[in-house]
């Protein structure tokens, strides 16, 4: 894990066991930035949802990686969850409630779902940077 003064980079196996690990890393990063509690909690939920989507959807019957990166500007924090999987492909047999992306959209100030350089998908989320 690489945590700079204002940045975060972490790559882990895309397993369900690593979902809380990335959430805890996000918490530590945002607490270090002094983010207000409401935004912090929204970001934790959004990152968790994004990571769960990677574990569930990015890799079909193969192992893969999941990445979390964070950066901070004066007025907002950017958190990006990425994978090197099969790209963003909606599943009609999606397990669970299938509401991860709508939840993220409701929680984050902005959301961008884009192709990653690794050929997979990135979910880039921004949150307002308000002091605690």
């Amino acid at each position, binding site marked *: 894990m690489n945590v700079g003064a204002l940045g975060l980079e972490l790559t882990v196996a895309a397993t*369900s*066991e690593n*979902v*809380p690990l990335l*959430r805890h890393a996000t918490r530590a990063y945002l607490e270090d930035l002094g983010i207000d*509690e*409401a935004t912090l*909690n*929204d970001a*934790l*939920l959004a990152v*968790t*949802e994004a*990571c*769960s989507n990677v*574990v*569930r959807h990015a890799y079909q019957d193969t192992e893969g990686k999941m990445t979390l990166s964070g950066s901070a500007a004066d007025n907002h924090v950017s958190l990006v969850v990425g994978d090197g999987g099969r790209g963003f492909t909606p599943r009609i047999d999606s*397990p*669970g*409630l299938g*509401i*991860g992306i709508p*939840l993220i959209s*409701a*929680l984050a100030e902005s959301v961008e779902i884009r192709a990653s350089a690794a050929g997979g998908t990135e979910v880039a989320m921004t949150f307002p940077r308000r002091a605690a």
Partner: protein
Amino acid sequence: MPSEAIQVRREGDVSIVSLTGEHDLSTALDLRHALETAAGGGDCLVVDLSRTEFIDSSILGEIVAAWQGAGASSARFALIIGNGSGTSVRRVLELTDLGSALPIHSDLAGALAACADPAAS
């Protein structure tokens, strides 16, 4: 007890599944198994989130499935969200609008009373 725990216990005809700590996709399957075990054990299923610090949509999905299963088998269902419930517990219900659909009680006494009252929703 570990910081993240799922406990199943019986109180008469009521099966209570209690979640402590943070729960997400990593514990969702364990929760499903616990709910399936509890659902077969009584006339009322109570899911206690009063000491749950965090849930996400994967956990909520298991709870909803248990609620729907209880309805299909004519069993009663109650969800406890209290002062000790984490912010995300209320937040995920708020954003999904399930807070108005699920039978939510603020403590175990309220949930048990609802279990005992066949007319309760």
